[in-house]
């Protein structure tokens, strides 16, 4: 048996021995455990699974052991992912710090930043949020205006961030701030880490068309942040953020791999399709075929990446396709339900009906957040097809 096969067998034995049975069932949105100082568990199995994976270093399996990671190479990490998938193991926690900020700190961080943040992150003790968008900086992110003015060893931060997911639950934020108002757009921006407990930070949840959401507005009123919290060079934050966003796709895929946190469209649709006729059947088939095509493309991308083929082209379509398909799926289900799909909380509607109505509205955000569909199309046209600006 080769080394990798031995590793696979060992991983499987360990997972079988350590992953509680209830942690091997498909997960729902409500059952996701988010790491951080306010981590909470709904049951003992969640806590056991969280602690065992944490102690094994497998919250961040590919980070060096010195940073609190599992020290695995890319092949071993893939084996771990495959075995978790094969056994149906849930992710023990969801953690944007590990998936997005961590790789950037490993690349750009100072020794002090790494030792301060990475081990705590890898133990799931800190929950991070992202402060990029502002009321006047959406698709044109580089027009952001939240100011960070140098004052001794600190920066004094003033301004507003918006669309910050779970800003009200996070311990720390990584943010883009303007450190040189004279410089050209992209060049006066720094990437900074802010403790959310700092005086002057105010967080306000945003209510969406679908009701309560995790999105928040975050206000900074003269918040003092140590200058040593800048990641990368001052005024070079745009490049750091671009790197971070390259990790976003991998991070987002964790949400589907860990058991898609969405309804099984076919099961939900079945009672409403009965007697619906050939047009509904055709529309439903088309939606299922779109999903099938997407999942096959995800598989092909993974195989290409393992074979070290260039995935820039096909990789560029994934965010666009997934967000549009999810949105279209709920659009279809909601229409299929007729007037029964028109209530988010009314009595006399089933849980599925209310969920579909809410998700139909909520998934409208999918094609806007994280780079709107129009921005994705611009990127494909310019970077992949080479069309002129």
């Amino acid at each position, binding site marked *: 048996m080769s080394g990798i096969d031995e590793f696979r067998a060992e991983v499987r034995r360990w997972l079988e021995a350590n992953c509680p049975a209830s942690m091997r069932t498909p997960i729902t949105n409500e059952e996701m455990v988010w790491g951080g100082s306010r981590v909470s568990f709904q049951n003992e199995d969640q806590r056991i699974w969280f602690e065992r994976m944490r102690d094994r270093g497998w919250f961040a399996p590919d980070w060096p052991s010195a940073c609190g990671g599992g020290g695995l190479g890319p092949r071993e990490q893939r084996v771990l992912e495959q075995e978790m998938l094969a056994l149906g193991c849930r992710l023990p926690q969801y953690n944007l710090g590990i998936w997005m900020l961590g790789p950037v700190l490993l690349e750009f961080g100072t020794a002090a930043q790494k030792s301060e943040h990475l081990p705590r992150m890898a133990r799931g003790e800190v929950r991070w949020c992202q402060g990029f968008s502002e009321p006047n900086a959406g698709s044109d992110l580089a027009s952001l205006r939240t100011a960070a003015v140098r004052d001794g060893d600190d920066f004094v931060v003033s301004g507003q961030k918006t669309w910050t997911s779970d800003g009200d639950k996070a311990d720390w934020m990584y943010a883009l701030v303007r450190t040189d108002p004279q410089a050209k757009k992209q060049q006066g921006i720094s990437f900074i880490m802010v403790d959310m407990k700092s005086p002057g930070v105010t967080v306000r949840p945003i209510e969406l068309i679908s009701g309560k959401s995790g999105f928040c507005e975050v206000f900074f009123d003269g918040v003092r942040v140590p200058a040593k919290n800048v990641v990368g060079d001052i005024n070079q934050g745009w490049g750091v953020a671009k790197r971070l966003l390259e990790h976003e796709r991998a991070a987002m895929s964790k949400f589907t791999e860990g058991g898609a946190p969405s309804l099984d469209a076919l099961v939900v649709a079945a009672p409403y399709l009965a007697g619906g006729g050939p047009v509904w059947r055709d529309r439903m088939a088309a939606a299922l075929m779109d999903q*099938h*095509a997407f999942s096959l493309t995800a598989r092909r991308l993974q195989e290409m990446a393992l074979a070290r083929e260039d995935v820039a082209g*096909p990789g560029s379509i994934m965010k666009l*396709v997934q967000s549009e398909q999810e949105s279209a799926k709920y659009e279809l289900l909601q229409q299929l339900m007729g007037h029964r799909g028109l209530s988010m909380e009314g009595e006399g509607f089933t849980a599925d009906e209310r969920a579909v109505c809410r998700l139909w509205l909520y998934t409208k955000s999918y094609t806007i957040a994280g780079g709107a569909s129009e921005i994705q199309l611009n990127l494909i*046209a310019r970077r992949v*097809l080479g*069309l002129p600006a």
Partner: protein
Amino acid sequence: MTLLLDDEQRMLRDSAQQFLATRSPVSALRALRDRGDERGYDPEIWREMADLGWPAAVLPAEFGGLGVGYKGLGAVFEQVGRTLAATPLLSTVVLAGGLLAEAGSASQRDLWLPKIGAGEALLALAIDEAPRHDPTQVTLRAWREAGHWRLDGQKEFVLDGHVADRLIVVARSADAPGHRNGLSLFLVDPAAAGVQIERTWLVDSRHAARVRLARVQLDDAALIGAPDLAFDALDCVLDRARACVAAELLGVITEAFGRTVSYLKERVQFDVPIGSFQALQHRAARLYVEIELLRSCLAAALEAADAGADGAAALASLAKARASDLGERTLNEAVQMHGGVGVTDVLDIGLFLKRARVLQQAFGDGTFHRDRYASLRGL
């Protein structure tokens, strides 16, 4: 199991690309058309393709098969689509060769498979009767009479039927149209008494045949497989053909798309390349997205065909539906984005448009395959 090509399949694809670029570019199809060629393919080029081993690609090993599978042959079909090369690969190799290999008797296999593999015999499948593809709707009758079989009825859209040495005819020997059960396959000599073959010119400058069988008498040796029970083998072979047609469509689509993107970069109006207009950029980007999705579906369909996997039928329908629809959309967009020159015969885009429409109809369009996929998924 992988969606990617192995080294041998890559070599086959690359050699196909080189061969077709020099020996069978788009201009070769144009020349066939302009001289009103009655065969619809070039026997000399076909012989060279046989020398490259294409007709043997998926034959069983004992008949000299290359062992590159449908993934390998699919890669060839994609290249064929890029230059609109006219070949009898689909009719002779995938359909007839496939059916003989799946269901043929030892003597049928021994007689025909070596000839197919060497490119020395052309065969065609006579299946469609109605305007749109639907194998269960076959009505052409077969019955026993005085120790023989009799066939009576009509077939249409028989690809390469006008040049075939033998036809494989799908006939109804039991049950009513609409049933899977009751179908039988017969090997028919086009020169036999009662067989009438009429060549039909299709819009893509290639040909199909309308075949009339008037009480044609056949003996038992003409029967392929068991009577009444041909559907499963037929459906399996049709799925391989659907995947191969989808592969050819992918080639047609990618080539036409590539030419269109180049044109968007070259064509200047209002003092700028028209490809700088966001309205056109987004339409082009959307086509690119669909092409990438199709590529994944196709790879999975070909992989499943090789593995004989349970999901092969659904994947073939997935690939053929998307390829058919995307062929329509891409070529319509390609013509539109080329503007006035796009509707002139001098530009090749029109040839791609026409070929895509023929391939769209071949063995089920998007509507047929969405319906089939729905059934396979229990909808």
